[in-house]
């Protein structure tokens, strides 16, 4: 055995409150997920999953979250994610839920998936948008999205229109 194998879980924070997205913090999210694991799987589950548990990436505009955990305990983590009901930050509770998009073995695979996913989301926005300028803006971003080597986490090169 040469190296530790991790699983990277890509989730999206879905909420009704538009203010919720702006107030997401990585620490608050980590606490909420750990709390859910503790409620569902108890002390054993919490201990197993928190061996190598971190929030690797967080995008407040689109609500995308990338979590890391060990390969042995990713099932415990994934099965506890539906039980996250709210995020707590700065003494305010925001009801929300996490929607799992993709589970990958490396950050790179998750990035690739995220780019494709964002592309489909932009296409969907394109159908719904009414303004001509917005349309052109989206089309430009669609054509320019790609995986580049310079930026370390280039999954969010395309801009969300803010209408989400």
């Amino acid at each position, binding site marked *: 055995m040469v190296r530790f194998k991790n699983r990277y879980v890509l989730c999206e924070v*879905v909420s*009704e409150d538009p203010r919720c997205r702006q107030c997401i913090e990585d620490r608050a999210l980590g606490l909420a997920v750990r709390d859910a694991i503790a409620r569902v799987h108890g002390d054993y589950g919490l201990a197993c999953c928190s061996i190598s548990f971190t929030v690797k990436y967080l995008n407040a505009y689109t609500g995308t979250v990338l979590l890391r955990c060990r390969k042995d305990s990713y099932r415990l983590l994934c099965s506890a994610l*539906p*039980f996250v*009901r709210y995020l707590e930050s700065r003494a305010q509770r925001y009801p929300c*839920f996490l929607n799992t998009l993709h589970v990958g073995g490396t950050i790179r695979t998750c990035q690739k998936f995220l780019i494709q996913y964002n592309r489909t989301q932009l296409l969907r926005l394109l159908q719904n948008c009414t303004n001509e300028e917005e349309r052109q803006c989206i089309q430009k971003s669609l054509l320019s999205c790609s995986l580049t080597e310079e930026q370390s986490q280039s999954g969010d090169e395309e801009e969300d229109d803010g209408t989400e």
Partner: protein
Amino acid sequence: KNTFTVCFSVGYSAVALNHVIDFKEKKQEIIKPVSPSELFPSLPIVQGTSKRIKVLTRLTLIVSDPSHCNLLRSTSANIRLYDIIAVFPKTEKLFHIACTTLDVDLVCINVTEKLPFYFRRPPVNMAIDRGIYFELLYTPAIKDSTMRRYTISNAISLMQICKGKNIVISSAAERPLELRGPYDVAKLGLLFGLSEGEAKAAVSTNCRATMLHGETRKSACGVVYTVKKPRKVEEEETVPACKKAKTQA
């Protein structure tokens, strides 16, 4: 309506709107289902494909008495308008009747309290043969801790009898925040004792089978088979006839 929009954005391809009829109250009329076209002028498209999302209507009957089942036998016009019919039996006898003779698509399993009866193998096997699916709800599990315990214990006892076949997991979400994405629901299936493949099937293929079951129940009264076999066998027999004669001789 908000719930529906969230459903669509999360990635479901078919959603069913549920009406619950409880027979304990005095007089219950089966009302006509709300037509989905009244809710949405144009249905949005499924993510990733180019087909439109299907919105179905569904009826759930909470039965605690055998006389309530007569409603299903009666040819009430309004029942025919629902796409999927589900029954929620409260006693063991009704569970047996629902699995064996009633004309339904789904049998709901209670998740909010300890089951008053144990599952037995014969009615469950008959239901599997007939193509009836067992339904588990997951929204109470998200809301409350004691409900979670009941959900898991009831689900696991069901799994032990039916070995994970014919299970459908659905949400009884009334608010958009009680909904979860399909991937997450499949992971919940793991908690209920299903294997990974079965859990994914519980969200995708079994649901589609239920929809088809509902459609066939609505439309088909009998099936006509056309068998092409006799002709083909005759033709085949003429050709190697000479060869056969040689070998037989």
